[in-house]
């Protein structure tokens, strides 16, 4: 059975993991952060998860709601532990919320020869990308410490992007396809097959 590791299970990662629960793959979830009340607006967490580690919270929800077993690692992925955290996986999914972690993950995946797909959302919540690592370059922030979109108003776009990411993962596991997508409020556009 294939093993997929989700790096970051906030808005994108938690929702994408939910949509990947029936892929027939083992899911590994990595996130050091804890669930806050404000996260319930746009991330796949329930009230009972507030205060829990995010990776553990998604693991529990998958188990309790769907009987799906997943593996949770409540640590921060860095250069010192990336190889260990990615070990044994067939695909890595980048849903981190900062450029530094994306670059560390990208480097670790390249060294390990591990396929990696990135997903990212514009700060204003109107646009998102799914892009495979061979065509990936992280964009710079407009201003240091730029706020992420945390409110529930962006949930429909987040859902669309998360489901597009899940579809990209599904296609890869089934056929090895590495398709890139652009997601906006007007639709989903495949930009590379």
């Amino acid at each position: 059975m294939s093993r997929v590791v989700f790096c970051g299970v906030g808005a994108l990662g938690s929702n994408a993991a939910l949509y990947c629960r029936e892929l027939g793959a083992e899911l590994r979830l990595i996130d050091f952060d804890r669930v806050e009340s404000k996260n319930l607006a746009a991330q796949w967490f329930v009230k009972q998860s507030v205060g829990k580690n995010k990776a553990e919270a998604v693991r529990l929800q998958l188990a309790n709601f769907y009987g799906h077993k997943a593996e949770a690692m409540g640590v921060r992925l860095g250069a010192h532990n990336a190889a260990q955290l990615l070990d044994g996986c067939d695909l890595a999914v980048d849903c981190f919320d900062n450029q530094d972690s994306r670059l560390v993950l990208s480097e670790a995946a390249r060294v390990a020869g591990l396929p990696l797909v990135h997903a990212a959302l514009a700060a204003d919540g109107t646009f998102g990308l799914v892009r495979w690592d061979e065509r990936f370059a992280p964009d710079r922030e407009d201003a240091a410490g730029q706020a992420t979109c945390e409110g529930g108003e962006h949930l429909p776009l987040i859902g669309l992007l998360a489901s597009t990411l899940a579809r990209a993962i599904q296609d890869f596991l089934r056929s090895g396809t590495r398709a890139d997508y652009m997601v906006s409020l007007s639709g989903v556009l495949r930009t590379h097959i």
Partner: protein
Amino acid sequence: MAVLNITYQGNSGDYDLEIDYAASDADIRRIAVEVVRSGGIRGLHLANLPDNAFANYVVDRLRAPGGEERIYLRPKVPFGA
């Protein structure tokens, strides 16, 4: 020659006329402002679009497996949210 796709305020569309694939990023941004102002993209017509509307946008140049050249002007995505 290449197809130009512009994404702005949640809407996205292709410009009907092909443009020079090697045009500079600054030229692409300037052309895009004129295209959106003139209504060259269906559903994305803003006559009063500011000159600097795309100042912080990213220009991606992608070549499809079939050889088609496409230029995407899009917002930055620095975060995974």
